[in-house]
């Protein structure tokens, strides 16, 4: 029994490595003084780099199930995990100086971040309800704590509380749905469930289970009408934490969506397609329209995230491999854009000053033309204007929707993308057309400047040469 359980255990080495390192860093951090705190930072970054190569080394075209079929290692999981490492690495790098300036440069941020990464990895590799839930809770608990990191800030505590309560409800919903599906199929294993589904006669309970599962997932993704927590958390949390929440966990949430709906419940595609259409359309509508009214950039980006989730769902709901690949491309490029946009806020902020108001971007072109130019890339990319990568992301999901004859849905989506273009344009307007209110030059560390430039440059570069990433997404989804 032990032999079979530990068969191919090497496929889980990255997870084991991250777990051990997170525990070690937790202990090491205890013995560090504030002066030496950067050792924690360096160790965390080293952990991510090593994990990156471990996962890269394990990359193969085949699919393996280990730990009694509860853990899956397939090409998609490897690629998504690599995405998580990169996003987290860049997040830590962007956050370092920000945290120092606010006296929250503590071990907890990095340790919680690493445990969060572990949770995401487990979600990405889950092939049973149990592992999926385990990973999700591990991630969520880390995020709740991180939001409350600045414990003296009332707005942060409020948003942490809100996030926790709503998150707990959503987890409950998800569990409830899972229990129904378990009741009908008699298994927690997603593979078994997908085989059993066709033989189930009583579809009512299945439908109920499906709805509750989707509610849980929609909450984690932040799809309307389960999006209420998102703007508050984005705005309330310290920007470094918002940066973390807004990037890597989106990849994990996408994986959860894929594992549950495609891996487990593809048989019920006809049912969940309708639900996802409603979620997608309302997310695009509410996200894009409400974003126009925001004056806080973090909050605006939160609504923009909601609308992007709507687009992401378009690819999945088409139910074709092409669509899944399109959604995967979408989420990876979205994370890239999201990293850059919150990175910009962090760069603009300084001790005792958060650059999270729209007006803080006034006249950026005069203060620092280079950053303004990069920010213009990000905004046009989010609006879906070529030649930036956001255009190809939108094009690929729209193509997936058109290919299954949902032309009206594509038309609705583009109409909302026009509405969305307005608030991205407003940022560019503030940066380029308005006079600067503040004249203080923007200072930032050299490594930050380079990584940010690389980050924004990639948005253009992948926009010009999207083929390799598109082909990769297609290839891993096919297998």
């Amino acid at each position, binding site marked *: 029994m032990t032999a079979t359980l530990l068969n191919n255990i090497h496929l889980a080495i990255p997870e084991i490595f991250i777990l051990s390192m997170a525990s070690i860093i937790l202990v090491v951090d205890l013995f560090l003084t504030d002066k030496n705190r950067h050792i924690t930072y360096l160790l965390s970054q080293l952990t991510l780099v090593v994990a990156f190569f471990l996962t890269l080394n394990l990359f193969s075209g085949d699919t393996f199930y280990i730990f009694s079929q509860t853990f899956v290692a397939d090409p998609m999981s490897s690629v998504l995990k690599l995405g998580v490492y990169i996003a987290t690495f860049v997040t830590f790098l962007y956050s370092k100086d920000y945290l120092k300036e606010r006296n929250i440069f503590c071990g907890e941020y990095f340790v919680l971040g690493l445990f969060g990464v572990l949770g995401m990895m487990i979600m990405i590799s889950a092939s049973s309800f149990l592992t999926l839930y385990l990973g999700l809770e591990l991630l969520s608990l880390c995020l709740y704590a991180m939001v409350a990191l600045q414990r003296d800030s009332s707005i942060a505590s409020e948003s942490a509380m809100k996030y926790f309560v709503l998150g707990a409800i959503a987890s409950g919903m998800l569990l409830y749905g899972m229990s129904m599906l378990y009741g009908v199929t008699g298994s927690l294993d997603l593979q078994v469930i997908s085989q059993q589904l066709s033989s189930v006669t009583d579809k009512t309970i299945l439908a109920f289970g499906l709805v509750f599962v989707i509610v849980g997932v929609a909450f984690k993704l932040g799809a309307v009408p389960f999006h209420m927590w998102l703007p508050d958390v984005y705005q309330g949390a310290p920007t470094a934490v918002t940066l973390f929440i807004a990037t890597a966990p989106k990849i994990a949430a996408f994986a959860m969506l894929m594992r549950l709906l495609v891996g487990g419940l593809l048989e019920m595609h006809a049912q969940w397609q309708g639900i996802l259409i409603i979620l997608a359309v309302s997310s695009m509508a509410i996200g894009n329209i409400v974003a126009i009214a925001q004056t806080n950039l973090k909050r605006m980006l939160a609504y923009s995230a909601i609308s992007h989730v709507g687009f992401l769902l378009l690819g999945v709901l088409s139910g074709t491999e092409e669509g899944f690949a399109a959604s995967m491309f979408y989420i990876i490029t979205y994370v890239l854009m999201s990293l850059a946009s919150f990175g910009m806020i962090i760069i603009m902020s300084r001790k005792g000053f958060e650059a999270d108001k729209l007006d803080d971007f006034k006249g950026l072109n005069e203060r620092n033309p280079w950053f303004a130019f990069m920010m213009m890339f990000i905004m046009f990319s989010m609006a879906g204007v070529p030649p930036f990568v956001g255009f190809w992301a939108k094009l*690929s999901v729209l193509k997936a929707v*058109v290919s299954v004859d949902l032309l009206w849905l594509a038309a609705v989506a583009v109409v909302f993308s026009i509405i969305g273009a307005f608030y991205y344009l407003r940022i560019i307007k503030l940066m380029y057309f308005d006079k600067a209110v503040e004249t203080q030059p923007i200072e930032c560390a050299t490594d930050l400047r380079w990584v940010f430039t690389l980050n924004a440059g990639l948005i253009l570069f992948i926009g010009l040469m999207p083929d390799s990433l598109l082909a990769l997404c297609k290839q891993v989804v096919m297998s």
Partner: protein
Amino acid sequence: MFLDWPLLSLVIWTPIVGGLLLLALPKKEGSVNSRIIALLISILTFILSIPLYTDFNVTTVGMQFTQNVPWIESFKVNYHLGIDGISMPLILLTTFMTVIVVIAGWEVIKDKVEQYMAAFLIMEGLMVGVFSSLDAALFYVFWEALLIPMFIVIGVWGGENRVYATIKFFLYTFFGSVFMLIALLYLYSQSNSFEILDYHQLKIGLTAQILIFIAFLLAFAVKVPMWPVHTWLPDAHVEAPTGGSVILAAIMLKLGAYGFLRFSLPITPDASHELDWLMITLSLIAVVYIGFVALVQQDMKKLIAYSSISHMGFVTLGFFISYQILENSGNLDGAALGITGGIVQMISHGFISGAMFLCVGVMYDRLHSRQIKDYGGVVNHMPKFAAFMVFFAMANAGLPGTSGFVGEFMVILSSFKANFWYAFLAASTLIIGAAYTLWMIKRVIFGKVVNEAVTTMQDINKREFFFLAVLAFTVLLFGVWPAPLVEVMDVTVVNLLQHIMQSKL
């Protein structure tokens, strides 16, 4: 010798790369450098584009100077370039006008010169890209990317109300384009290809054709612009800096008309036939009604903007009367005359409207007003300038001997073969056009000096003389000798007509 060079790619990427370099260069005081660099790049691009004309084979219907490299294999998108008799003159117009615009912005732009010049160079490359793309996705990328530099140009160097104008411009055109994107995706799902030439051969049902036609119409009608989606144009023109207005009027408006020839007519010939009454009506409304609107404008730039809309009505009229001519007489030459006339009108309008905006720009630089009432008697203080302005105004009104006459005359002539009343209404523009243009000239150039400030106006300097003279020469040249222009497009237009005569149902 030039045939082996990837000439089109060079014409596209030289200005784009040059523009980006200009942005990256270290900033120097006085920034004379960036002006000279921009001028050199634009002249180099123009020189590179000349072989496109001299080595052009006027006897073949196929695409020339083609280049086809796989770009995004997952989507079957190719970097496929090529030109025919329709796109070649437009590319030359683009490279030519960019040189003029760079010179025109020489002393006028004092703020962020390198960004200004870079925006125009990048725009030039993107516009050439639109005209030479043979792949729908590539076309769309260039088409949309073009909005970015124009948005910046109007917003940064524009007039008082620039933010409103530029956002309106962006959203309006973005709105039109996204529906074209859906149409293209639909065509892709039917043909499994993004090649425009494949779409030309694709069989499509009538309902689908009509929907595709409408989607294209939204994109192209906004760009042309046709009545009633023209309202962004006066705003954008009025607020844009002179160079922006010139590029908008001279080239960007042509993109929409070009789209009709490259997409709407050949891909959806039956829908175009079915809906030609709509297109003709909208065109005639533009010609007549917008002409009257132009008559009452107080703002010179607005007046020229409306006159542009009215003139572009001729272009679309020329394109869409072809079905009725073919039905009435089966006369291919008559229909070809309409389309050729439309294209000639596009080119000629590019020169004339560009020149008109430059003239207004010259006056604006001196008095900082665009209002007609602030001027009067300019001829007394700027005689050389007045001569040019009167000449361009005559060309705008369609005086024989100028290029403005040729295109309008061809379209009116061919519309007689379609329907007398079309010709009657279209010809009325010769009167309305003369009325609004000459009335403006009367109030601005001639008459008594009402405004004290006019007496302080200096006549044009050498730089201004140069670009106005070059434009005047071109307008005159094509006016008396349009043959080189008509010859290059003849075979392509006949081929297009033969193509659209065949039903694709």
